[in-house]
């Protein structure tokens, strides 16, 4: 009998073990899968679309915001009459019929037909009631001011995973701050699929990206955009730049450049237009660099305003090259004030030789030439200055009047602004504050980068520049009644080892009012054709914009 008991016991133990192992399988091994299966019957995860942060101008106008758009997709397996559907969809969506037809004939459950359609277009297609066609809500960038400041703003494209990514300008530089966080909300449904009040997993408001408030003044940006466009047309230039900065803070008030692109349709433009020439294009500044070299020589005590040039009565021969003035006129014993007023190259060679390569390099470095400005825009470039021992005699002479040295427009404006700011160079900055989705505001404080020249030198240089405006080549265009400091520039363009005599970069740089500057501005025309000179192209546009800005800021004349 005992064996029977034992057999029953063993069978029971085996059965018990089988049940136990099965329970272990369901409760431990498959626990997560079962839990997920159960949850799927009463829970649904709804993806929350991340909303990219907005970009606002200094008046809190949303120059870049988001609009709702839709992705039209279809399930080809649900569409019965594919030919009819492709005819209707191609005409409504404005795409080729053959393209729609070939997509609908695919053996797939999901095909994308068109992205970026608006609410009205969506409604039209909805009203057609085509079975198997549906929509997905997305956010796309909307630009109320169209292509205003396009280079400055950049654009939003897609990354390798098809997600939104900022490229160029502010969108590129502040991409991580602007992009929203992806999130999901769990909703509980009853047996009939109706939602039941349940705990949401996250607050959708906190998924939004940070917003940026800029130093860019929309009115000033509009003025510079309009004046620059007209100037390019009037002077037959290939392109142009206007950059306006507040010398005391480094705030960038306006940054215009043409030819440009439309950020909402960036794909339709040549990719070479995406780069912001104000920060990404190097050029030889020509005579607009002279104030930096002259102020360096004044600051170092090498020359005084009344110092006479002993080599300016004829062309100067340096290192086998003959250096001439722009109009081939030479003045014996010309003083430094007139060297700036007449934009005398031989006078600047005299200053450069007295200053020497060591001191010139030191001062240019203090001015931030060859180091980059640190502006908060994607794509800034700079060309480092050559080492001190690589400066040859001819380099020293030509660099003194702005040839043989390359800078970006923003680099030149920032260094020049330090003269307007009593010798203190500020970091140029486009963004004023960051607004978080939680409602906090992070202010960006102006940052001083160091002293370039003494306050006294800056005052002397200002007087020399005011004199250049009032009595120089561009005096016909000046704004009467105001003291404006400025300097023209006409730089030849280097081509294959020599300078093209007919193609120039014409520019004008200055600040106003000279005694208490509100703005510093640089105007550049690339290869103007009506005249090659800065005094006849960039200067009138500079003073035209300056007149508007003085009116806009309510600054009264002083003379």
């Amino acid at each position, binding site marked *: 009998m005992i064996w029977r008991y034992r057999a029953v016991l063993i069978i029971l133990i085996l059965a018990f073990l089988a049940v136990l192992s099965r329970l272990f399988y369901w409760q431990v091994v498959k626990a997560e899968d079962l839990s997920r299966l159960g949850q799927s019957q009463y829970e649904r995860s709804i993806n929350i679309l991340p909303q990219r942060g907005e970009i606002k101008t200094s008046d809190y*106008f*949303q120059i870049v*915001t*988001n*609009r*709702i758009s839709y992705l039209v997709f279809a399930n080809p397996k649900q569409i019965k009459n594919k030919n009819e559907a492709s005819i209707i969809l191609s005409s409504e969506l404005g795409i080729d019929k053959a393209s729609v037809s070939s997509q609908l004939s695919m053996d797939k459950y999901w095909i994308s037909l068109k992205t970026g359609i608006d*609410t009205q277009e969506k409604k039209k297609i909805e009203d057609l009631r085509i079975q198997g066609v549906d929509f997905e809500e997305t956010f796309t960038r*909307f630009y*109320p*001011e*169209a292509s*205003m400041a396009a280079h400055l703003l950049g654009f939003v494209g897609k990354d390798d995973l098809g997600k939104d990514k900022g490229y160029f300008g502010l969108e590129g530089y502040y991409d991580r701050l602007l992009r929203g966080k992806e999130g999901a909300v769990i909703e509980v*449904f*009853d047996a*009939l699929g*109706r*939602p*039941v*009040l349940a705990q949401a997993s996250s607050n959708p408001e906190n998924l939004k990206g940070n917003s940026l408030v800029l130093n860019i003044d*929309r*009115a000033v940006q*509009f003025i510079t955009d*309009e004046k620059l466009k007209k100037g390019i047309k009037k002077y037959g230039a290939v392109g142009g730049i206007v950059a306006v900065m507040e010398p005391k803070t480094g705030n960038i008030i306006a940054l215009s450049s043409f030819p440009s692109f439309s950020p909402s349709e960036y794909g339709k433009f040549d990719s070479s237009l995406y780069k912001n020439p104000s920060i990404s294009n190097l050029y030889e500044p020509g005579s607009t660099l002279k104030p930096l070299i002259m102020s360096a020589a004044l600051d170092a005590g090498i020359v005084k305003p009344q110092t006479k040039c002993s080599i300016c009565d004829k062309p100067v021969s340096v290192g086998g090259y003959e250096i001439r003035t722009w109009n081939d006129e030479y003045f014996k014993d010309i003083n430094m004030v007139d060297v700036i007023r007449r934009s005398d190259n031989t006078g600047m060679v005299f200053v450069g030789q007295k200053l020497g390569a060591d001191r010139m390099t030191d001062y240019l470095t203090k001015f931030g030439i060859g180091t980059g400005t640190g502006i908060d825009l994607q794509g800034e470039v700079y060309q480092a200055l050559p080492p001190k021992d690589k400066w040859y005699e001819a380099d020293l002479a030509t660099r003194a009047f702005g040839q043989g040295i390359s800078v970006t427009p923003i680099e030149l404006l920032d260094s020049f602004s330090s003269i307007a700011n009593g010798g203190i160079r500020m970091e140029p900055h486009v963004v004023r504050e960051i607004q978080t989705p939680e409602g906090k505001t992070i202010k960006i404080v102006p940052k001083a980068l160091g002293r370039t020249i003494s306050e006294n030198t800056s005052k002397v240089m200002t007087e020399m520049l005011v004199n250049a405006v009032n009595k120089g080549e561009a005096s016909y265009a000046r*704004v009467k*009644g105001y003291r404006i400091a400025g300097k023209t520039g006409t730089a030849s363009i280097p081509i294959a080892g020599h300078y093209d005599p007919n193609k120039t970069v014409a520019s004008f740089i200055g600040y106003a009012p000279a005694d208490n500057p509100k703005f510093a501005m640089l105007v550049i025309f690339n290869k103007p054709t009506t005249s090659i000179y800065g005094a006849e192209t960039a200067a009138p546009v500079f003073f035209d914009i300056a*007149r*508007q800005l*003085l*009116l806009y800021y309510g600054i*009264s*004349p002083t003379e």
Partner: protein
Amino acid sequence: MKKPISVLIIIVLCIVGLSIMRVVVSNGISTSGIALDQIQTDIAYYKIQNINVKQKLLSISSFNYVASKASSLGFGESKSIISLNKSIPLAKKP
């Protein structure tokens, strides 16, 4: 030792009362699905409406739009700067 009957009764009543309340509340919430669904539909609708209105508002308050409107109405750019350097006399002798 006397049994704390009154305490037991209170506890039992509490349990029964809370259970009934839970059933009532759960029942009330679970049948709010239709209303909730409607609220969510309304929220989505107003959200879209708000964004569309904001888009329209931004478009018509943009400088590009205002400038083109002003130009079509005949407004031009002020070319001269008028400033008052001296105080204006209140009255002048003829």
